[in-house]
């Protein structure tokens, strides 16, 4: 009896933000869309995020950040994922990221960046359309 393939998503909050309401809203929305969402709470280091993605064998990572530390943290996370051989994971980000930084962030391998107030349906559709195909 063949089981079904579930989309596994890690929702992580790097940086020193002190609340995670937005991240939880996205996590719940993805769960309600039928995905398995691993939620790790506040203040995750890049090392913790990359290692969690590895252990949980996720297809997708959603990073949420408000504090403006994305310039330091996102490239580090992407670098660690590559070092661990996890470049096939689709990474998106959400939160407050200035327009002028978006191109630079995407160059590090982050596939899409959602601004504050993006409807959760948009994010769900994006994940469903862009989840990497795996065996």
């Amino acid at each position, binding site marked *: *009896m*063949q*089981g*079904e*393939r*579930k989309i*596994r998503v890690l929702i992580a909050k790097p940086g020193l933000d002190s609340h995670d309401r937005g991240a939880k809203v996205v*996590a*719940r929305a*993805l*769960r*309600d*869309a*039928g*995905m*398995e*969402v*691993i*939620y*790790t*709470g506040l203040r*995750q*280091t890049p*090392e*913790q995020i990359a*290692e*969690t993605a*590895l*252990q*949980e*064998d996720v297809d997708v990572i959603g990073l949420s950040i408000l504090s403006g530390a994305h310039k330091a943290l996102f490239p580090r996370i992407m670098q660690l994922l590559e070092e*661990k*051989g996890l470049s096939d994971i689709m990474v998106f980000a959400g939160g407050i990221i200035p327009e002028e930084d978006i191109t630079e962030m995407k160059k590090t391998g982050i596939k899409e960046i959602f601004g504050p107030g993006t409807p959760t349906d948009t994010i769900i559709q994006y994940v469903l359309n862009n989840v990497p195909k795996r*065996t």
Partner: protein
Amino acid sequence: MTNAEEIAHGVLAGDRRSIAKAITIIENNTVEAKKLIASIYPQTGKAHIIGLTGPSGSGKSTLIEKIVREYRRKGKTVGVIAVDPTSPFTGGAFLGDRIRMQELSTDEGVFIRSMATRHYPGGIAKATKDAVKILDAAGKDVIIVETVGAGQSEVEIIKVSQTTVVIHAPGLGDEIQAIKAGIMEIADIFAVNKADRENADKAVMDIQAILQLNNKEAAWKPPILKTMALSGEGVPKLIEKIEEHKRFLEKELGQKRILGKAETELIEAIKEKVTSSIIDELKRGGKYNELLKKIIDREIDPNTAADKVVREKFKKAE
């Protein structure tokens, strides 16, 4: 090498990425899953497997974090499988146990995996048992399984664990009722967590009272311990008891339990094989829906129908 062989190799070498992929293969129950288990099975049976069950919010995840730290101090490697429920409506799941354990995630001697029940009843996932085998084959000394904790009787865990710790905490209202219903019998150790709170002693006494009612097998009397998972107080004592229970299993009940577990696993595997081979054959021959319709139309009852198909199956085999 096939994909399954390659991953089995990696698992046996303790490679973390291989362990992660192996658990995914087991969870998705692909054709490779059986091959994978078959090839790692000879290397299993070395780890001590601890089950942690008890109501939601009693502090299971927090306590596991402290237990893992204590085992790490003793130089042991640890695997953790934390199970959370799949939504019956959407099929999705929110897996949040890691929140309490994230500091362990970068310790190379620890491997943590969150797992959704995928509608399997009894407080664990169908894949939990085989995921434990993966961690065992990968060389983890201790493996801890956290059950869902939904309060229903979560007794499946004893098919997986060697030492079962039932957690309770004061201030969870009528949860003691839930503990009474079936879960008392599976406890090898009781931990009353949140012992920093007022009513901890009353919780201890409640458990004592129930234990006195059904005190049958006296070879192992389940101890009742108090823990404070936030500070870690009481955790070394808990580990002492777990180790004591492990030694007890090795000499007294051990062989009986090992035999019982092997039997349950064999019977379940046979059931699954026979059932799916009969159902598949009925479906291939187009008889499945026909039979269902007859049952709905009251032309045949389910039991007689089952009798018929099983008889036919074995007649063919003779």
